[in-house]
């Protein structure tokens, strides 16, 4: 039985990879994200300066041969700081998406599998959550938990979770109505078994599309919150926090906000393009409108 079930999904993966290989733009985006991740991991070796090393003789300087991205108000090298900040920004996005998955996926499965009043209750709560203007809800959560990067990412994770929940519920519902699943249920297979064998394999690909797009959304949200001072706290720094600090020197040293801002924009664009490419590579039957 499991062999029969595995065979089509195997060929589906092959078909998916073949389609994805033709998405030139998405391949570039993926390449960029891989390089970026490597740069973040190896920042201590790649960065030209120590990101904390001050040089008060050279503060708020524009780009030069010594400092490609210029220096900040304490004479620290902006390029090195952008490289080190990428660690925080990337990790924060990953953290928010993981939190969103943890909050959204289990109730989505439950709602789709059990249905009835459990489903109604979960969906009501989701509607209520989605009726909040997103950033305002995030600020409220941070107000309660206190400003910190982790708390900010918890807030962002809560905001993103309803979409994962709905995706899981929709997939679970459609799979649960398949004849072979009803048959499996009638011969006494447990719900857990059905979820493992039939629901999860079906939901993985649309989930990956959503994860890619939401990593971009989370990165924008983290940047926004850190810009406001509600996310990353000093001495740690993310791209958004760098823009927030550079705000004060906008008239004297625009490079302080130009480069970290560009880093956010290009990274988010890459995540979106990757998400588009993944969606276009999925079969029509599993494609999700976002």
């Amino acid at each position, binding site marked *: 039985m499991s062999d029969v079930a595995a065979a089509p999904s195997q060929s589906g993966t092959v078909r998916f990879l073949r389609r994805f290989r033709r998405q030139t733009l998405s391949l570039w985006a993926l390449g960029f994200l891989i390089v970026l991740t490597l740069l973040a991991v190896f920042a201590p070796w790649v960065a030209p300066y120590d990101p904390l090393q001050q040089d008060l003789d050279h503060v708020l300087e524009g780009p030069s041969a010594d400092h490609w991205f210029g220096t900040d108000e304490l004479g620290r090298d902006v390029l090195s700081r952008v490289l080190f900040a990428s660690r925080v920004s990337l990790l924060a996005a990953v953290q928010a998406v993981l939190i969103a998955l943890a909050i959204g996926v289990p109730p989505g499965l439950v709602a789709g599998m059990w249905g009835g009043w459990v489903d109604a209750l979960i969906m*009501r*709560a989701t*509607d*209520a*959550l989605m*009726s*909040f*203007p*997103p*950033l*305002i*809800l*995030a*600020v*409220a959560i*941070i*107000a*309660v*938990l*206190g*400003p910190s990067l982790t708390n900010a990412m918890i807030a962002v994770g809560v905001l993103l979770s309803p979409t994962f929940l709905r995706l899981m519920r929709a997939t679970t519902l459609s799979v649960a109505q398949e004849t072979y699943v009803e048959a499996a249920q009638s011969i006494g297979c447990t719900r857990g078994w059905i979820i493992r064998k039939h629901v999860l394999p079906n939901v993985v690909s649309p989930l990956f599309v959503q994860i890619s797009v939401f990593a*971009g959304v989370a990165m*924008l949200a983290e*940047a*926004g919150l850190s*810009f*406001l*001072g*509600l996310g990353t706290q000093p001495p740690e720094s993310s791209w*958004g926090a760098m*823009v927030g600090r550079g*705000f004060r020197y*906008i*008239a004297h040293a*625009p490079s302080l*906000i*130009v480069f970290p*801002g560009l880093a*956010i*924009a*290009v990274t*988010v*664009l890459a995540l*979106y*393009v990757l998400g588009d490419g993944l969606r276009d590579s999925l079969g029509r039957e599993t494609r999700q409108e976002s």
Partner: protein
Amino acid sequence: MLRFVLQRLLATIPLLLIVSLLVFSLVLLIPGDPAFQLAGEDATPEEVEAIREAMGLNDPVMVRYVRWLGGVVQGDLGTSLFSDQPVLDVLLERLPVTLSLAVTAILISLAIAIPAGIITGTRPGSLADRVVTVGSSVGLAVPNFWLGLMLVLLLAIRHAWFPATGYVPISDSVSGWWAHIVLPAFTLGLAAAAILTRQLRGAMVDVMDQDYVRTARAKGLPERAVTVKHAFKNAAIPMVTILGVQTNSLLGGTIIVEQIFGMPGIGQLAVASVFTRDLPMIQGVVIMAVVVAVLVNLLVDVSYGYFNPKVRPK
């Protein structure tokens, strides 16, 4: 029509109840004892106990919730811990700033998205289409605070074409209001413009294939009337749905944009209240935001009737 609006409002009551429960529970989640904080570090246990009793903190949670909700319904959102003013008064004072920012941003996003969506949707694959498609992807990826800062840098600092910060009420000076609102509203509206353009483009491509577009052409109408009148009114139906969602996230975006442009609105208040731990104020901001969001969605529902006669209430 009035009955339709009333029905819709009634239908939102369960939703508002759940929302109120969530907002109320913010207080329960907060670490530490509010009475202890209010009393100050030198307070004796008896003093703290007295404050606790006066604040009603010793009552069961349900009693406190009902009491709080009763106040909210009557417009009593509590008192600011920071300024001792009634929360509602502070919010109402700042509401016009945020509303005029949000409304202008929506209008700007529509002013961009409608022509861009119609042009690209009627000429898929053309140069204009590709340029706009790339532009909308970039518009989605650029963080709005960064865009705002770049606009300030270029248009307010390098060229002093616009004031960098501040706000002038429209009742004081229309031109002053406009000069202060353009950059923030554009900053706030760009992401919505990108999403709406994509949405409208797709809808226009579908609609242009419909038989009634051919009928309109067979009547001898100029192509402009065919696309702008006949096709657009149908393509606008899905766009209105997205507009509702976008308005919601745009309201959240006012927090950042007001901060950048130094506008004394609700968003700026929200950030300040986080740092002063002014929880009643935060709760008030959230309630106000949800009420505005619910009203906007009601407006969206009502405007469906204009675009789609099939759902028009009799």
